[in-house]
């Protein structure tokens, strides 16, 4: 391995080393504050460690890992959300008994898995990243030992995530059986298989892989676990599942399907379109019947992943690859900060009750009159989820539209419009609940320091990049073009 390659994977090496240091510190001098400070420093240092690699990209480090602008952009997003989740989790766990330190180590491990995932170019590193992320998440979901809901959510997530991993593995094995290679780029050469058997294997293999990925991305019809896990998991962990886990898996899926050329198969595109339309409709329609804010956000995330699939499908159209990468990157950026803001508020409202999280909509009644700033931030995130102008969510959805119009995907655009219309209803319901005049509930909410600042910063970013999106668009154009 050359010196340059070592520099390229410096962030991963550094984060692994810091996790070990943190483990030792927890073992010998257990202190929640120290652990959290180490976590935040580790995340920032890892981000800074991408700087020296920036001049080398794109660079392949062994056949397993490739570091390019695309990987750096998504690594940055992941590190940013992991930092926000760390701050929220500190508020959430600091008053809930002793021995909460290991949670932050698991959070760093899951982040490491996501970082490996976004820069993998080989099925072995894909599985490694996926499982590092997954196994840490099972433990994180079940971490608070109170109540049965967290255990049930963790067990459901474990079984379904395990099954979807086996789908991905079996699909990989089938493709390996005909291609003789586990790298993504090498798959492109066998894309146009001559004889019938290998074509069948390729189709079955990619269908299995995509089935597994649909589970992980919570796309309909494999979305059933999402609301249960969102409701059962502690609010900061839900934020992590919704952003880092889904974002990293989407990033690697886009890389896998574009660099192997699998996406240009017409049967796969038809299947993807059906999945996208189903997710948009199912997500938005099922959310109408919910009274639980965490479940509403779960269904909303199913719908958002459906919108994201429109950009994904664009990648398979002629001349759509660059636009697909650009639009999905911006949409994911918008989705990341909006979701983090929403779950940040849910975390703050949940601090009062140690037995269960603030899921039910009644927790939010009267929030406008007692905690106006918090309520305004929550309103902003909900409007951003709905895609109202002047928020970052609007620009994200605008990008999806541009991608769809350029490649003339009219049916999908129709579903996006219908979904957004229905979506407004349940987002506004939460806002109306917050304006209700009542003395119960919301008056006792105290805004913590770390989480409060995190949510405030996220809200500011949501407005800033909604009004002036140019810096992020330039960043995406500079970095992300490398994959296409």
């Amino acid at each position, binding site marked *: 391995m050359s010196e340059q390659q070592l520099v390229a994977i410096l962030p991963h090496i550094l984060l692994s080393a810091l996790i070990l240091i943190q483990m030792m510190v927890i073992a010998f001098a257990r202190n929640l504050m120290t652990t959290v400070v180490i976590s935040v420093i580790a995340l920032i240092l890892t981000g800074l460690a991408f700087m020296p690699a920036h001049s080398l990209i794109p660079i392949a480090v062994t056949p397993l890992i490739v570091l390019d602008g695309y990987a750096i952009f998504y690594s940055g997003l992941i590190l940013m959300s992991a930092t926000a989740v760390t701050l929220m989790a500190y508020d959430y766990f600091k008053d809930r008994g002793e021995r909460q330190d290991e949670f932050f180590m698991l959070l760093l491990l899951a982040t490491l898995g996501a970082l490996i995932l976004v820069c993998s170019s080989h099925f*072995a590193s894909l599985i490694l990243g996926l499982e590092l992320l997954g196994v840490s998440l099972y433990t994180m979901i079940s971490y608070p030992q109170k109540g049965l809901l967290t255990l*049930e959510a963790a067990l459901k997530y474990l079984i379904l995530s395990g*099954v979807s991993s086996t789908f991905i593995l*079996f699909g990989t094995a089938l493709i390996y059986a005909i291609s003789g290679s586990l790298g993504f780029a090498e798959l492109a050469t066998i894309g146009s298989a001559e004889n019938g058997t290998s074509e069948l294997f390729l189709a079955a293999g990619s269908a299995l892989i995509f089935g597994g990925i649909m589970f992980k991305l919570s796309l309909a019809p494999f979305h059933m676990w999402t609301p249960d896990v969102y409701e059962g998991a502690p609010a900061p962990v839900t934020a992590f599942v919704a952003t880092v886990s889904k974002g990293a898996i989407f990033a690697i899926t886009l890389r896998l399907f574009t660099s192997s050329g699998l996406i240009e198969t017409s049967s796969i595109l038809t299947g993807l379109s059906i999945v996208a339309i189903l997710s948009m409709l199912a997500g938005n329609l099922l959310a109408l019947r919910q009274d639980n804010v965490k479940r509403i956000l779960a269904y909303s995330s199913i719908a958002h992943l459906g919108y994201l699939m429109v950009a994904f499908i664009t990648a398979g159209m002629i001349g759509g690859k660059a636009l697909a990468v650009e639009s999905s990157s911006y949409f994911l950026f918008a989705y990341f900060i909006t979701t983090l803001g929403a779950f940040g508020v849910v975390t703050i409202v949940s601090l009062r009750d140690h037995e269960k999280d603030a899921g039910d909509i009644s927790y939010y009644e009267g929030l406008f009159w007692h905690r106006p700033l918090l309520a305004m931030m929550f309103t902003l995130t909900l409007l951003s989820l709905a895609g109202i102008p002047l928020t970052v969510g609007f620009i994200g959805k605008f990008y999806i539209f541009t991608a769809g119009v350029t490649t003339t995907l009219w049916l999908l655009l129709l579903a996006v419009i219908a979904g957004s219309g229905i979506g407004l209803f349940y987002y506004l319901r939460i806002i109306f609940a917050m304006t209700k005049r009542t003395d119960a509930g919301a008056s006792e909410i105290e805004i913590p320091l770390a989480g409060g600042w995190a949510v405030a910063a996220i809200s500011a970013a949501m407005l800033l990049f909604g009004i002036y999106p140019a810096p992020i668009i330039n960043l995406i154009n500079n970095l992300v073009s490398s994959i296409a």
Partner: protein
Amino acid sequence: MDPIAVPIEQGLALASILFAIGLTGVMVRRNIIVILMSLEVMLNACALAFIVAGAKWGEADGQIMFMLILSVAAAEVAVGLGLLLQINRRVGSIDIDEISRLRG
């Protein structure tokens, strides 16, 4: 000396059957231990498919993936059994229907 070659189709067919058995087990059975066992069967079916495919190409890649899957399976089941112990201590049952409270 040439080892007795198993045709790749037969090997993959066996793996597919094992995979289907595991998947059926996960979906039909209600006992959490049996579900975790079925998950293990599915993971091992994948591992077998990799061995067969690796043998076809005469490469070590398939066997390396097998090792990777072994460790993944161990990690998943370790966490799964930990959760199972907690659930059993609290509910006194390991039936997945009895612990199910999240709905909607």
